[in-house]
């Protein structure tokens, strides 16, 4: 079987860098220890090897499809839903009293990474079910929880989130799905939702849709949106009956073809009942709880696809003989055996770029997951700080792997030459699969607006101050080692440049030029993401260096030395790109604001 993940890298991040076992000192996680985390990771890898990876290519070749009102998906979807329900993994993050496992988010993310590396079309089915059940559990009344959550956590019923409509994608304020009170506590739901991942298939008895809709007479805009539980089949006595939710189609996509993406019609026959979750008009706020988790999950999906692609291109480079190395004097010995392409510096550059992007992404995603745990179960006095850090880093943790992962896989595909373009090798599938991650759960543009327009300025910049403190702590730890001092200085300078650029942009916000403030938010995202990942790389390198000098090694010395080498690569090849971003962001010319250049794109 092909290698699709480095378990050593995952163990390094989870244990040596983030010290997962320290979470076990908090009451919520006291039933766990390091050994149970290790067994969980190893068991997930075993399952991924045995069940998930073997269907990775098959799900692409035999995609989800719509036929005669039904959605057909690969049978492994049914197997995974059943296993995840029985195993307890759908309810892994839930409280014990809801039948959950109270697993830390950090470990949950590590397990998701393994599964996503093996087959990125599968984990969404269980992940969205868990997310939808989580929303009901967090904001729904007890009767609603009792009715739906147990069957969702057992994998018998699937769950989805229904936001997008044909006329309302990124702009949720324009949704028109309606909810009319029936007088019995339920609502009549009417409308259409598109791009509903995992929205219907034959391997679940029922689907519980979490639907955003407007109650009759609700205020315009996002303030008038409420959240409803709308099952495909509603409960009637001891059985189920149709709830007038029609599956109208399955979108055929360029990637993630095994992950069905449905078009749902609610209330075509005026017989679709929904039940309000929480309070009316607060639906979007509730949904964002799920969205934030989903954004981290999408970042994980992207990082995982790019990770699997890195291992595929690495294996190819190690095996493919092509050309000869240039000898001193610039000549080649044409009589010598061909060298494997991994010996060519430009191929090594591409592989190191892949490694720097993927391992950096995984590191930040695990860091964000740890902040999630600390914000919920850590010391009371620190929880708000960790929550702010998570809020600030979420758009970056979603966007960097999604965008840079594409570049990473593109380089991997390049390593395979013409074979990279062929279906004989998996690179072309990875290249197609990752593309969606920069689109769903908020496009890169939306994430960038969120980062600059909301998160950087939230609480008067408090979250940014917390992040700066984390970066400074890492710089100071790195300065203990002469070998790392130049990189610590480079990150210190980059962090200052980031601060200067924020101050420059804030002037526009403060003077009322809001459109100008956020016009180049995507460039800002690129800038800040690059600095944040430099922070993660310096942190990893410092941990590696500490292991090397203290003779306390979980892995062999080469593992740690390679970590430091990849950090040096990132600081030489990637971090300098912030100069370009800064130059653009400080340039006073405004070339994209419509009123000033109406005709240029006419």
């Amino acid at each position, binding site marked *: 079987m092909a290698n699709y993940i480095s*378990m*050593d890298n995952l*163990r390094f991040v989870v244990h040596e860098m983030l010290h997962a076992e320290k979470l076990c000192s908090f009451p919520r996680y006291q*039933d*766990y*220890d390091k*050994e*149970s985390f*290790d*067994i*969980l990771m*190893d*068991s997930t890898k*075993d*399952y991924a090897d*045995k069940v998930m990876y073997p269907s990775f290519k098959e799900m692409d070749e035999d995609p989800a499809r719509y036929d005669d009102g039904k959605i057909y998906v690969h049978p492994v979807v049914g197997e995974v839903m059943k296993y995840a329900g*029985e*195993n*307890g*993994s759908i309810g*892994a993050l839930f409280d014990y009293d809801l039948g959950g*496992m109270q*697993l830390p988010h950090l470990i949950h993310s590590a397990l998701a990474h393994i599964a996503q590396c093996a087959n990125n079309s599968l984990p969404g089915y269980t992940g969205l079910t868990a997310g939808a059940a989580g929303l009901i559990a967090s904001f729904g009344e007890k009767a609603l929880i009792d009715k739906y959550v147990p069957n969702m956590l057992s994998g018998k019923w699937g769950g989805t989130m229904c936001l997008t409509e044909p006329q309302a994608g990124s702009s949720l304020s324009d949704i028109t799905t309606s909810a009319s009170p029936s007088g019995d506590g339920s609502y009549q739901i009417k409308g259409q939702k598109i791009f509903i991942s995992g929205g219907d298939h034959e391997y679940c008895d029922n689907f519980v849709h979490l639907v955003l809709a407007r109650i009759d007479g609700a205020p315009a805009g996002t303030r008038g949106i409420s959240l409803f539980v709308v099952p495909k089949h509603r409960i009637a006595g001891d059985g189920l009956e149709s709830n007038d939710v029609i599956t109208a189609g399955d979108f055929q996509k360029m990637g993630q073809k095994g992950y069905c993406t449905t078009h749902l019609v609610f209330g075509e026959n005026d017989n679709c009942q929904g039940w309000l979750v929480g309070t009316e008009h607060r639906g979007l706020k509730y949904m964002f709880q799920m969205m934030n988790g989903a954004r981290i999950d999408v970042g994980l999906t992207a990082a995982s696809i790019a990770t699997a692609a890195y291992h595929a291109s690495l294996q190819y480079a190690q095996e493919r*003989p092509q050309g000869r190395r240039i000898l001193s004097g610039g000549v080649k010995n044409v009589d010598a*055996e061909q060298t494997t392409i991994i010996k060519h510096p430009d191929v090594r550059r591409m592989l190191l770029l892949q490694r720097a992007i993927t391992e950096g992404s995984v590191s930040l995603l695990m860091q964000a997951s740890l902040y999630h745990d600390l914000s919920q179960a850590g010391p009371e006095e620190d929880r708000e700080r960790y929550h702010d850090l998570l809020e600030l880093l979420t758009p970056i943790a979603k966007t960097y792997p999604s965008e840079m992962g594409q570049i990473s896989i593109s380089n991997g595909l390049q390593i395979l030459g013409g074979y990279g373009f062929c279906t004989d090798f998996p690179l072309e599938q990875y290249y197609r699969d990752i593309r969606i991650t920069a689109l769903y759960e908020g496009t890169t543009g939306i994430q960038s607006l969120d980062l600059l327009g909301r998160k950087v300025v939230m609480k008067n910049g408090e979250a940014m101050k917390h992040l700066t403190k984390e970066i400074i702590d890492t710089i100071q730890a790195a300065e203990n080692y002469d070998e790392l001092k130049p990189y610590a200085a480079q990150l210190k300078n980059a962090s200052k440049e980031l601060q200067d650029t924020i101050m420059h942009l804030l002037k526009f916000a403060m003077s009322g030029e809001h459109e100008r403030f956020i016009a180049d938010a995507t460039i800002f995202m690129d800038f800040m993401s690059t600095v944040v990942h430099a922070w993660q790389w310096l942190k990893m390198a410092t941990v590696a260096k500490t292991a090397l000098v203290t003779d306390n*090694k*979980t*892995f*062999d*010395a080469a*593992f740690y030395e390679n970590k430091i080498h990849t950090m040096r690569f990132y600081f030489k090849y990637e971090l300098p790109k912030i100069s370009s971003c800064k130059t653009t962001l400080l340039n006073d010319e405004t070339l994209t604001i419509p009123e000033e250049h109406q005709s240029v794109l006419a």
Partner: protein
Amino acid sequence: MKLLVCVSKTPDTTTKVSFTDGDTAFDTQGVQYIMNPYDEWYALVRALELKESAGGTVTIINVGTADNDAIIRKGLAIGADDAIRVDAAGGSAYFVAKQIAEQAKAGSYDMVFFGKETIDYNGSQIGAMVSEMLDMPFISYATKMDMAGNTATIARDIEGGQEIVEVDTPFVLSAAKGLAEQRIPNMRGIMQAKRKPLNVVPAVAVDEKASIVSYALPPAKSDCRYVDAENMDELVALLHGEAKVI
């Protein structure tokens, strides 16, 4: 039925093997360990199947230090009821067999299961030694096993075919591929494992009968030779003349 399953800790299959102490010891630095697959996938799972069909208990036993608790925990997560760890830094096959035999005698087990070999030293010795020490029959390389009352019918692979053996309990068995199918511990099992009994007992004194003189790695594999797909004559000549496999 009381079933005892002996489990070993072995380096992960991707480990780069090297030696230390003048090539007399395996260099453990940076090595990731797993439960020996023959113990886990076949011996343990078949024992659990027997317990599930006929009742009883499954105990796992390991000879080693506290570092081995991780693989013992995995065995408990898969479904064993309890575990014994003989607290010793290891030793020869004879030393390990002695420790296991002592515990097996004390526990009066109906069957003692081993994997057919460990994937590190490939000795395949301990099961046979334990059966001798317990004065029990030993059926090695079992690929299928059915129970009827106290009688087991066991298939074992032999050169060019298969042998069917009938044996009454108590007996010792070594498990080969086919005896059972790998079970992956589930999340609830992993949580429960932490609460299952792990009894740590001291080792008994043993007079070692043999010592390791040295280890050596096999010769490095030579580079690949690429032969044009159209040039079958060259391929045949190489396989005949150089590789000497045809």
